């Protein structure tokens, strides 16, 4: 007997019981399975390829003599405070594909330190230890936008805007003020009947620039806070429920009655969550909006250090003006001064060029026009000038990268 194919014509031998031992395979079943498998694979390849843009013809940019590199992917990560704006930018910017992972300022800092991203975003500037940890050639720091932290709350029966002082907020987050209808808070809100309910404190569980802003403010307002908890991207919270990201805090407060939290004003407004007024150094209670955040930044008027310098003391908290919102903040980007040196040979000049082009675009008038509709503060012209100079100082293996004129 031959040892040929056991496919369609295997010989059979009968056992005494009359059962065939080797069964004749059904004719044509093998090819049918093969066809189905091939069809499935082809469908998968087509779908995947379509999504991955394999079938798109490369689009050429129409910005005159400068042709931006195409097909580059830029990865950024960090601050959730600026994430809604970043997402809008990454969707609008077509010269490269920009991915932004909204993972919190703390992760943004550690990601850029670990060189797993092209740019890191954080509302907290690098502290001296973090600056020392950044490998050579070091990063440049510059603000790409500004926002503000607001105290959001969920009190179903209350429709008037509550007033808070820094002291009150500190005591709530220290856990020493535990009920909504305590006398201090009630005293500051005479026209409102606060409910007799335990305050559900919501804070960030991840490393957060918004936490940095919040805790910095509370440190200024309350000595106990300053000495026991301090200000940083992560705090040893004595009480409260942890949530991830500005969006997590918003979700938790929105779905939990009697809760209080702190988020950027964008999240409060775009999700219809009530937020309170905060007392500023002049004694006025200010409900945050783009105007009074903008005036706070103007009045605080901090001096920018050099792009590679120490930004840790740059602050726009408790601005002096009568109608300034006291919890304003810049939000920063960290980019390696020389990506070629930093990331090594796998990082091409085209990619460095694409990065610089994107950064130029977001600080340009076009990029900044996305801010106000999303309740972020457009950069002042002085800040834009500073940023453009910083971006121009980014080199590739020592050679200057000239940004294409933003369209």
């Amino acid at each position, binding site marked *: 007997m031959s040892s040929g194919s056991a496919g369609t014509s295997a010989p059979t031998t009968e056992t005494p019981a009359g059962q065939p031992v080797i069964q004749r395979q059904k004719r044509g079943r093998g090819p049918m399975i093969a066809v189905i498998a091939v069809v499935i694979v082809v469908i998968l390849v087509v779908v995947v390829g379509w999504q991955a843009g394999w079938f798109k013809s490369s689009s050429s940019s129409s910005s005159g003599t400068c042709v931006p590199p195409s097909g580059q992917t830029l*990865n950024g990560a960090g601050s959730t405070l600026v994430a809604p704006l970043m997402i809008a930018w990454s969707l609008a910017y077509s010269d490269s594909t920009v991915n932004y992972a909204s993972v919190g300022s703390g992760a943004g800092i550690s990601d850029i330190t670990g*060189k*797993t991203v092209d740019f890191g975003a954080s509302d907290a500037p690098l502290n001296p230890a973090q600056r020392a940890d950044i490998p050579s050639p070091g990063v440049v720091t510059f603000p790409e936008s500004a926002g503000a932290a607001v105290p959001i709350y969920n009190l179903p029966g209350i429709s008037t805007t509550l007033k808070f002082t820094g002291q009150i907020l500190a005591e709530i987050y220290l856990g020493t003020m535990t009920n909504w209808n305590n006398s201090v808070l009630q005293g500051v809100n005479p026209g409102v009947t606060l409910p007799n309910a335990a305050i559900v404190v919501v804070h960030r569980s991840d490393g957060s620039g918004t936490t940095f802003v919040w805790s910095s403010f509370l440190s200024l307002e309350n000595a106990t806070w300053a000495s026991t908890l301090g200000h940083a991207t992560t705090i040893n919270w004595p009480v409260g429920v942890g949530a991830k990201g500005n*969006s997590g805090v918003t979700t938790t407060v929105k779905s939990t009655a009697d809760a209080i939290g702190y988020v950027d004003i964008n999240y409060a407004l775009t999700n219809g969550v009530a937020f309170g007024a905060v007392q500023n150094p002049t004694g006025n209670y200010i409900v945050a909006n783009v105007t009074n955040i903008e005036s706070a930044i103007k009045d605080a008027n901090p001096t920018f250090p050099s792009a590679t310098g120490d930004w840790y003391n740059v602050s726009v908290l408790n601005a002096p003006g009568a109608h300034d919102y006291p919890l304003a903040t810049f939000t920063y980007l960290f980019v390696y001064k020389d990506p070629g040196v930093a990331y090594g040979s796998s990082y091409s000049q085209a990619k460095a060029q694409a990065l610089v082009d994107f950064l130029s675009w977001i600080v340009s008038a076009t990029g900044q026009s996305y801010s106000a509709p999303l309740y972020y503060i457009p950069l002042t012209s002085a800040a834009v000038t500073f940023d453009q100079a910083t971006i121009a100082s980014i080199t590739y293996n020592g050679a200057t990268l000239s940004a294409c004129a933003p369209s």
Partner: protein
Amino acid sequence: MMFDRPARRKYFSHGMTILTGLSIVAIMVPLAAVVYQCVVLGGSVFNLDLFIKGLPYPCTPRQGVTCQQGGLAVPIVGTLELIALAALYSVPIGIGAAIFAVEYAGERASARIIGMVADVLAGVPSIVAGAFVYALIIIYDPTIVFSTFSGSIALSVLMVPIVTRTCEEALRTVPNSVREAALALGISRWKTTLRIVLVSALPGIVTGVLLAVARAAGEAAPLLLTLGDGCAHPLQGVTQEGCALPLWIFYGATSPYQNWINLAWGAALLLLLLILVLSIASRLTLDRMARRMRGE
């Protein structure tokens, strides 16, 4: 004495029967509740857009603002890519290990050890599989640690034991007489295994693959640590950050934006349907294997 008062004992027994029956009802309640919720809330976004559009800008409807529904095209494609890659690694490895256990080790201790290793691997927490892949890839290339490639490896760690175990059982159902007859005819061992034994065990193997795919399709935890977040744009290459349905449900579920929450329910319903289809398909192939065992 135990056998006094027979009536009381009988009523007690009936009572226990009712209690155990109530256990069944109690178990069905969360199943029904979850399915109901997914159908009702997910059904509201179940239209063609769900399958062809990309993710919408996160948005909650309010005065003067309407939100786009968007769609799940990117997570769906991401999941398909992940499963295809993970199956590519795990199915050959699982089948190979099963072949060794059944055809070469047979009744020896090594066969039981392989089976035990597969069972124990199946019990590894999925988050640990993700942490393992992260720790592994970061040694070699930190830039691809958050990528579709990385996620597919994590999923294959979860799929291999299922494929191995099911395949092993399927191969064992092929009667030895088949192998012996083939060898007696002079057919070489590898041809016997591949073309005769494997083919007879095919329904069981397909069951294993379907079960493994059903598991991999629903896992979010290992992807949380290995996939990154590439859901905003159509997927780029395998070394770029990816997207997957179950992971996206996590992002959507924890977001405050109503359009994302709606889409998350749509994704949950989609996943449920996928699991249901895979379960039914694997049940059908399992029946086929059982029929073969009985010699039909």
